[in-house]
């Protein structure tokens, strides 16, 4: 019998129909994926289930009984809990207090000793891999650990239904593996889990059934995962082929377009504490993607370049001249524009009309006592036309009444009006419906083709690969890799972007290998004919495998190609007589998370391959302790 059964769910936010006649059902012991592109309504539906959002219409049946929640507290009491990205933890309280936080709101005195015992049991119940000290202050935990606390909090309430809303958005692949392991355990214990995500590989990895939403409507209801392919799911999610969305034309350019000197050159830029060492070059006419997980310091990098944050190190050059804006207006007058991440809080001025919102950056740029609006009239109208907006919409008093996509177009127009040389966009399609998304992509291509240097930050790996010519990957405030986007896949991008706190462990293993046996050790991923080098230790030239951290190589050109592709259990002699051992690291779901290679100079004595393989695998296999190390 279904644990939860929703039907006829409709919800309208202002002018946006977020959900219309959606339905959803969840059985005990299953993971049910709730998928859809950005803005498809999956978050709204999950928030309806968790009681955070009250639907305009719905039939809500829990355990065969019709229910009506008026708040998330109602849902909590009924055993429905949500684990979100923006964690709802109190950072100054301890792990124990956070886990038991909902109890504090219940009548009666607290028995802390009993609560402590209960919490310890819950931690033990999640399996031995979890290392959490109950007295630790939550503010000092890593993101992965905080999510575990959230889950424990849900379990402490005896929640039978747990909603995971984009739980992996800031987790490394290792941490995600642990989370999926815990999810499996929970389903085995009879919990029903809802998994909200748009990452295909995860959906297929953990979900038993899938419900797909598109623009608030149901396009697939409870289909079994096994019966579906990735391509079908993408078509369901976006209603067409992926390539169409990114408006790339037939083929991405073989080599990114670069004309002459870079427009923007960033060297070892730092802005404590979030930006630590960022370097890249941005050329006129190209779209450069800045990829990474949430919290990697990408937005902060843009803000530092734009003069919103003080640089604490490194330098930036704009067309060859030193560029260090103290305030945004300095950057604006130098031809740099920024479309910030949070539209509501950093872009829209709700009390100004749409027209004044469009002219806001002009107002900042304008010198003089008056407003100087008249001088921009023609250009503003031309831009509106380019964006496909009717000119009379300018006189609307309230930009907040517009759909997300329309709002974003107005904000884009705000900056294009100034004819910038460098256009920086932070999550340009967040909260934008899929139709408008592809028109924004097309617009960015057009702007770049006109010679503007475009820098795009996105947490959506699909988007960053689809829209960019080149990608720079950031992790924990450091730019760690750079390559043409056509060479990279979503999976390998996720490995490059893994937070340093988890990469540290693998790096330590590489260093140990080199210390014990000499040579060069690498952490790589292989996809078809491409090798992604995530990390490397050792500098012995006689053992140099010819690959470098943060780079992509063509496997067939490498001397150690055979060792990597043959997957032989022992050392393989490379074409240049060096010897390489490749050790596959497997995830919990039995899929490969990458390879560790150890290359030794020709003629060196070889360690026992079998022992070494086991040692490395033990150290690296997705053990709880690995990912749950303390935050750096």
């Amino acid at each position: 019998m279904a644990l939860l059964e929703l039907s006829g769910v409709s919800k309208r936010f202002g002018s946006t129909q977020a959900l219309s006649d959606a339905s959803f059902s969840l059985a005990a012991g299953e993971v049910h994926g709730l998928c859809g592109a950005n803005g498809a309504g999956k978050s709204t539906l999950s928030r309806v289930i968790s009681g955070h959002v009250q639907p305009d219409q719905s039939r809500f049946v829990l355990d065969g009984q019709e229910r009506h929640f008026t708040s998330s507290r109602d849902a909590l009491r009924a055993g429905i809990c949500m684990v979100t990205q923006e964690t709802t933890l109190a950072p100054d309280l301890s792990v124990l207090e956070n886990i038991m936080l909902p109890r504090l709101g219940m009548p009666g005195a607290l028995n802390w000793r009993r609560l402590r015992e209960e919490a310890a049991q819950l931690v033990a119940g999640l399996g031995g891999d979890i290392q959490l000290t109950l007295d630790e202050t939550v503010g000092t935990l890593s993101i992965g650990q905080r999510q575990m606390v959230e889950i424990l909090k849900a379990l402490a309430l005896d929640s039978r239904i747990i909603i995971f809303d984009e739980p992996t958005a800031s987790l490394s692949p290792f941490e995600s593996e642990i989370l999926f392991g815990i999810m499996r355990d929970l389903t085995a214990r009879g919990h029903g889990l809802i998994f909200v995500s748009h990452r295909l590989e995860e959906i297929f990895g953990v979900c038993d059934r899938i419900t797909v939403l598109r623009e608030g409507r149901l396009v697939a209801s409870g289909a079994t995962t096994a019966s579906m392919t990735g391509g079908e799911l993408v078509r369901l999610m976006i209603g067409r082929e992926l390539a169409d969305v990114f408006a790339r034309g037939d083929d991405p350019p073989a080599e990114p377009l670069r004309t002459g000197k870079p427009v923007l050159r960033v060297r070892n830029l730092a802005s404590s504490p979030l930006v630590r060492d960022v370097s890249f070059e941005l050329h006129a006419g190209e779209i450069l993607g800045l990829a990474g997980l949430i919290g990697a310091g990408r937005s902060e990098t843009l803000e530092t370049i734009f003069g919103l944050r003080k640089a604490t190190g490194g330098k930036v050059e704009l067309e060859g001249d030193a560029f260090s804006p103290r305030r945004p207006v300095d950057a604006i007058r130098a031809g740099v524009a920024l479309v910030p991440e949070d539209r509501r809080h950093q872009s829209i001025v709700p009390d100004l009309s749409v027209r004044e919102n469009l002219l806001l950056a002009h107002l900042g740029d304008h010198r003089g006592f008056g407003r100087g609006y008249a001088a921009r009239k023609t250009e503003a109208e031309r831009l509106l036309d380019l964006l496909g907006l009717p000119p009379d919409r300018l006189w609307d008093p309230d930009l907040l009444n517009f759909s997300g996509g329309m709002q974003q177009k107005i904000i884009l127009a705000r900056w294009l009006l100034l004819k910038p040389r460098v256009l920086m966009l932070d999550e340009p399609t967040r909260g934008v419906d899929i139709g408008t998304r592809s028109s924004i992509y097309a617009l960015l291509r057009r702007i770049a083709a006109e010679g503007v240097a475009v820098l795009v930050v996105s947490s959506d790996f699909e988007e960053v690969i689809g829209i960019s010519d080149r990608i720079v990957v950031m992790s924990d405030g450091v730019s760690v890799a750079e390559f043409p986007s056509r060479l990279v896949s979503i999976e390998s991008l996720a490995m490059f972007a893994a937070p340093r706190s988890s990469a540290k462990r693998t790096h330590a293993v590489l260093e140990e290998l080199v210390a014990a046996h000499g040579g060069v050790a690498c952490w790589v991923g292989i996809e078809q004919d491409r090798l992604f080098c995530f990390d490397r230790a050792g500098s012995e030239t006689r053992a140099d495998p010819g690959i470098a951290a943060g780079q992509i190589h063509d496997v067939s050109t490498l001397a150690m190609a055979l060792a990597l592709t043959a997957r032989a259990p022992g050392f393989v002699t490379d074409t240049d007589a060096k010897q390489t051992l490749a050790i596959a690291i497997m995830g919990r779901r039995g899929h490969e998370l990458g390879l560790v290679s150890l290359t030794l100079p020709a003629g060196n004595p070889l360690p026992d391959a079998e022992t070494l393989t086991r040692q490395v695998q033990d150290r690296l296999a997705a053990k709880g302790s690995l990912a749950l190390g303390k935050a750096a």
Partner: protein
Amino acid sequence: MTEEIVPAAPPRHGVLKLFATQIELRMLLLTLAVMLVLAISSPYFRTLNNLLNAMDQSVVVGLVALGQTLVILIGGIDLAVGSLVGVTGIVLGLCFPSLGLYGAVAACLVTGAVAGTISGAITTFGRVAPFVVTLGMMSIGRSLAYVLSGATSISAIPPALGDLSSLTIFGVPLNFTLLIIVYLLAWWFLSRAKGGRTLYAIGSNNAAARVAGLSISIWSVLAYTISGLMAAVSAIFLTSRVLSIDPLAGTGLELDSIAAVVIGGASLFGGRGSIIGTLFGVFIMVFIRNGLNLLGVSPYWQGTAIGSIIIAAVLLERIVSSRARR
């Protein structure tokens, strides 16, 4: 590809639309309604003399409320204006003997502007809540007014200053005419000048204004500077009316000015409000006080009446404007 949803503007027509979107119009109607009620209840209210009297009474609070509007527009509040009227008035009185009329007026204005700038700089750069900073400044201002004056009023005021309050232009008092001119200038500034639009943007969304390159620090301070300056101007007009200044002068003006701004439709969260609305707010306050006096309502009850009207006006404005914004 799906059709993009372009939400239509809520359907509004003609007069209703004008009424819903123009706060100035709503305030004008409200003012007229208050006048009508009072004119019916009290025959004396209808006399020209009383109208002139009301004009005269609106000058002092009107000038202070103008500065207060700018501060409230950026999401701040200036509690110091009342005591600044006191201290700048005392400075004016003390400076006449040594600096002459113009010198004393200049000293008075500088004192107000500097005090306002100090409040503004501390809230802006020191990131202290404006409520706290101006509360402190309020106490300091009143205390200095007593210290400088030796706790006595100053009556040695050159009679020439009295012209400000006694002269008329075509029958309209000079001071009231000047008040209207200052308000028109402020209206032009707030709606047509870069600085004015910056004030709105700061109050409505500070972060967005910053990203767009507006000079938010400068204008956040200047709003308080202007508020302090207007308190000094107000002190000059107050002194000219009675040719004497008391260290207690201006007591309660902070609340009256805030009330006028709020009745005039401004949001205390900033970003929303209108200078013309404030002017009508001032008129409503003055008329009601005046009317209650004429009707013989005990002064002790007037506070209750004014307070209820403030709450009712804001509640009404909130309902009407939230309808309009939907």
